[in-house]
């Protein structure tokens, strides 16, 4: 019943089938290139020629577009406005608003920074849309990430929706006992204890049970562990990762060379 707290959309596509580490490398490479490449239009071109086509290739374009326009665009716009107004560079004032000057330089600067942030957040969104969190974590654990770390991430994603569902049941149970959760503020403030008590207590009990359950399956065992799910890591994955590494190095080199 309980949904995981994740963006992941289960579909079959070239991107979904990539090894999680390859996808993570792709995200990091795109971000590094967007921030270090010395050419002004790099982030814009990346968005148009890499990220959007990739989202189509991953068959998640509608969801990607929705997140990008509703979530990332407003944040990037805000960033753009702040930087455009408050960046004290350039002489050529093209717009005045009380004491705030907008120069062509500050406008250009702000636009690029907003685009960089847009690229960063949108590639991560693409990554989250096409990668199941537990797949990523089991792949990383296999490569040597401590199990405890993976557990913290995964259990947080799992526990939040569960606690939400639990809270709903508790509220229902107490309302059935005549607890007024709908009327005046004072009455509602008084009704906090009957709701929080069982929630906190129940969650503590669950944490303990969870700990016992995973320990019973040898969580802290020092032996090498096998995995139920084989996560494929093909030669093509390795090839893509090398290409991405080369791109990152080139981009950083170009940055140092040309500036």
């Amino acid at each position, binding site marked *: 019943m309980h949904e995981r707290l994740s963006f992941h959309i289960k579909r079959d596509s070239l991107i979904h089938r990539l090894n999680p580490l390859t996808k993570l490398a792709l995200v990091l490479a795109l971000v590094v290139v967007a921030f270090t490449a010395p050419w002004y239009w790099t982030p814009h071109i990346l968005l148009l020629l890499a990220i959007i086509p990739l989202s189509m290739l991953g068959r998640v374009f509608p969801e990607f577009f929705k997140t990008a326009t509703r979530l990332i665009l407003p944040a990037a716009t805000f960033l753009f406005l702040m930087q455009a107004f408050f960046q004290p560079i350039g002489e050529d004032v093209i717009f005045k608003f009380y004491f705030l000057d907008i120069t062509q330089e500050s406008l250009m600067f702000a636009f690029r920074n907003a685009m960089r942030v847009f690229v960063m957040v949108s590639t991560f969104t693409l990554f989250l849309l096409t990668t199941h969190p537990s797949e990523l974590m089991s792949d990383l654990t296999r490569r040597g990430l401590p199990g405890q770390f993976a557990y913290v991430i995964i259990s947080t994603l799992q526990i939040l929706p569960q606690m939400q569902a639990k809270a709903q049941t508790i509220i229902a149970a107490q309302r*059935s*006992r*005549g607890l007024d959760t709908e*009327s005046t503020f004072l009455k509602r403030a008084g009704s906090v204890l009957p709701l929080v008590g069982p929630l906190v207590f129940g969650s503590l009990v669950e944490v303990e049970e969870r700990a016992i359950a995973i320990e019973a399956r040898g969580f802290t065992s020092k032996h090498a562990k096998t995995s139920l799910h084989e996560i494929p890591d093909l030669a093509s994955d390795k090839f893509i990762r090398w290409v991405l590494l080369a791109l990152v190095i080139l981009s950083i080199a170009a940055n140092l060379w040309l500036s």
Partner: protein
Amino acid sequence: MKIEITNLHFTYPTGLEALKGISLTIESGEQVAIVGQNGAGKTTLVRHFNGLLQPASGSVLIGDWDTKKTSVAKLASRVGYVFQNPDEQLFSRDVLTEVAFGPRNLGYSKEKIDELVKRALSLTELSNQTETNPYDLSPTWRKMVALASIIAMDTPIVIFDEPTTGQDAVNVARIANVIAELRKEGKTVITITHDIDFCAENFERVIALFKGQVLLDGSAREVLGQEEVLAQTYVDPPQLTRLGKRLGLKETVRNQEEFLKALES
């Protein structure tokens, strides 16, 4: 108090159509068991009785109150609902305060609260545990505290959601005893259960739900006799009932007493 359900439909936000046109009348003082496979709509149905869920269409009347126009807190004075998991409702430091919480919410006088709490505690055999923290009790007894906390509200209708799950024979007998006492007081008792023996031994009327609709509704004898129909919703009649059928007994038997009687005749 009479419960009248007319053409009740309900769909969860996820799009799951849980109830597909249920019409039922439950008379004052009836003892009703609701059975059916998981997902048949049992809990969804009873959550309409105290307004926790609102009908998508159709109506639920509790006496003269329409649940659509009455708050849950107000309906709590007519319908008591014991949730499946006691840990989802217990929060007080001691049993006494816990059991008094419901009646206090309903605004009864102090004397009446004392009296109701005392009676509920003695019914559930918790009278000498009033000072105990509910969480120091075993899960079995926590369940009894949850029962007591609803009984103390003295509602004309009491709903139990799977009261016997995870309980041993002794405690099942205790719960059966509570239900028998409530019946003597003329209260309506509605119980969701997967425990078909418990259902056969304690309830006169049985309603079998199947995919959001009423599959069978009638006396326990009538309903439990229809093995093939019940199989649709994965309910097996009690072993004795089935044995009686195989032996070719004329009447449907529900318990040992009836079985032996039918065997002799």
